[in-house]
């Protein structure tokens, strides 16, 4: 410890600390005294870095390399999407760009997924969900709902990576407890500062990240949650009447998104251990990954593309729950009308109230 003594800084005022014969570390600037063990622990935490090593997770993913058999593979000439279905389903339009797609016999079936959640709602229910989604959206252009494109909605099995991992983390926090009192002349505030460290572990299972570059990541994330209890082993029979997209985004690309969500959750859970303090500031968050695995699955999504004023608006419907996600166009006229109406209405009420109460 003595080698590093000169570099230790006072947690209160950042002045250098001095070793005192009493066995304490003393700050000559603010006169605070510290237990050397605590200061050394703070220093050690400050020098540590988090590790996110997903190791050889791919071995668990492609150990047999099995392909989907007896499927018909379509390729979109416009956007390059490769989708497949069974021999009984005729597909003529790309679910992503609505352009013509063609059958190719040169491509073999895609990687067989580790599981699939079959479609639970039918096309009519999906259309009804989309119509419900439009309700109450006061800034939606009036003629947007009248567009007769809802019947173009298509059921697509979207490829997802499901990430499973444990989080083993330590959070070091600067915490305070505040006490206040007053006498006849002054208000006093006493702030006691603590160094709080909490270590814990937890497991995450099935964090989904879509594996298709054709699907918008935010849309797919917002479509959650899926009920994994209804997941079944893949069978080509589930493709009947639906299309299945192939993954074209490597898990390595998707890992940072899964990491970020896991870390946010883990920090939130560990931080809740400091609820008895007045203020808590995270000094260091050290989250390490344990036993990571990845699973490739197909999840059911209805996709609807609406072309409005030369812009494509894509809506996705969770084929299991009916949840609808999609950015909606905003009417400028309605925006101004709402803003103006509220400003004038609220302004008039506020003026009258002010007049009656403060005149």
């Amino acid at each position, binding site marked *: 410890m003595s080698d590093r003594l000169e570099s230790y800084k006072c947690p209160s005022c950042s002045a250098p600390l001095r070793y005192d014969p009493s066995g304490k570390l003393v700050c000559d600037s603010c006169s605070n005294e*510290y237990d050397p063990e605590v200061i050394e622990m703070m220093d050690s935490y400050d020098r540590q870095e988090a590790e996110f090593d997903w190791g050889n997770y791919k071995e668990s993913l492609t150990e047999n390399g099995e392909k989907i058999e007896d499927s018909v593979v379509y390729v979109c000439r416009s956007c390059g999407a490769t989708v497949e279905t069974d021999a009984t389903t005729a597909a003529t339009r790309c679910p992503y760009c609505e352009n013509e797609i063609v059958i190719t016999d040169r491509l073999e079936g895609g990687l067989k997924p580790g599981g699939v959640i079959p479609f639970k709602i039918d096309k009519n229910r999906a259309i009804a969900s989309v119509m419900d989604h439009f309700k109450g959206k006061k800034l939606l252009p009036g003629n947007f709902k009248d567009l007769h494109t809802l019947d173009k909605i298509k059921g697509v099995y979207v490829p997802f990576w499901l990430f499973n991992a444990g989080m083993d983390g330590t959070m070091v926090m600067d915490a305070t407890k505040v006490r206040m009192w007053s006498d006849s002349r002054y208000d006093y505030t006493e702030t006691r*500062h603590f160094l709080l460290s909490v270590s814990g572990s937890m497991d995450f299972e099935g964090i989904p990240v879509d594996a298709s570059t054709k699907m918008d990541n*935010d849309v797919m994330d917002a479509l959650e949650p899926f009920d994994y209890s209804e997941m079944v082993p893949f069978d080509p029979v589930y493709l009947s009447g639906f299309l299945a997209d192939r993954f074209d985004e490597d898990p390595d690309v998707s890992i940072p998104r899964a990491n970020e969500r896991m870390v946010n959750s883990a920090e939130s859970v560990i931080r809740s251990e400091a609820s008895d303090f007045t203020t808590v500031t995270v000094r260091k968050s050290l989250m390490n990954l344990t036993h990571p695995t990845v699973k490739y699955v197909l999840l059911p999504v209805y996709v609807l593309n609406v072309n409005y004023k030369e812009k494509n608006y894509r809506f996705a419907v969770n084929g299991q729950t009916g949840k609808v996600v999609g950015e909606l166009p905003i009417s400028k006229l309605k925006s101004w009308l709402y803003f103006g109406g509220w400003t004038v209405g609220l*302004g008039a009420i506020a003026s009258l109230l002010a007049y009656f109460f403060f005149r």
Partner: protein
Amino acid sequence: MKKIVCFLFAAALLFALSITALADTPLLSSDKSDNENGMPYWYPLNTRGFEDFHGENLPYVVDDADILTDEEEARLSEKIASIAEEYGVGYVAFTDDDLHGLSPEYYSSDFLHFNGYGVGDGYGAVVFFLCLDPSDRCWRTTAINSYEDIFTEDIMYEIDETVDYSIRSKGDFFEAFMLHAEYVENLFREISATENWTPEDHEYKYERDEYEGRSVGAPSPVKFVGAGLIVGLIGGLIRLLSLRKKMKIVPPSTANNYLLRDSYVVRNRRCDYLFTTVTRHERPKETSSSSGGSHGSSFSSGHSSGGSFSSGGRSF
């Protein structure tokens, strides 16, 4: 030896006479720097046993904060002089930018007492004090002795309403002084015209002033509309943003849905005390921000003159 004793006796007599003279004559003629006790130039060096007296040739305007032009000072002085002469009122306009540690009520009350502004047998007087001390910018109407019965809380409120707009909204101190003088003039005209006048006889209204033809003290309707418009703009913007938010996609930022709740284990929780800081802040002074202001009836401070006063005003 005899000469020395005579000289010492004469010096002592001269000193005693000068002290007596100092107590009986207004101190305002002195140099305006603080006295040797660190108090204002008009403050007696010794306040023990002080008794009210009638000062002579007292100025009607004492602008120690130097906020009025010479012309304004002359016009105001002329106005107050006419009131004082017609109704025999002890009335002065006073400004200062240093309270010397006293409250504005005590400071203005002491100003009246120690300079002998009181008139008649009751030694009544009233001052309109505009304080520009950085620690307490305010105005006070302070009445002493017999005038306390005239300048009641309701009257003080009416005065505050009268000058409020000029000071707080326009920053026109001269206008405030003139409005105050007009109010005092009207009040004493009413008193002289009413037999056995009491504050209950006063009609609590104020005539429209001569400056802008507006109702004095009543905030402009434009202010209400302006304030309402600001509230409306903020409300409209919040409503629009909330409507726009419904049109957007909000992806989740956590993986809480995928956390296996039973899997969470706290391996270690350690809490080490580091240090304690204690800060203190002086409690805010209680200032009168609405009608009437603070009313005092007796002094307990060693700095004060020992007389009574009533005072009202607001901060700005």
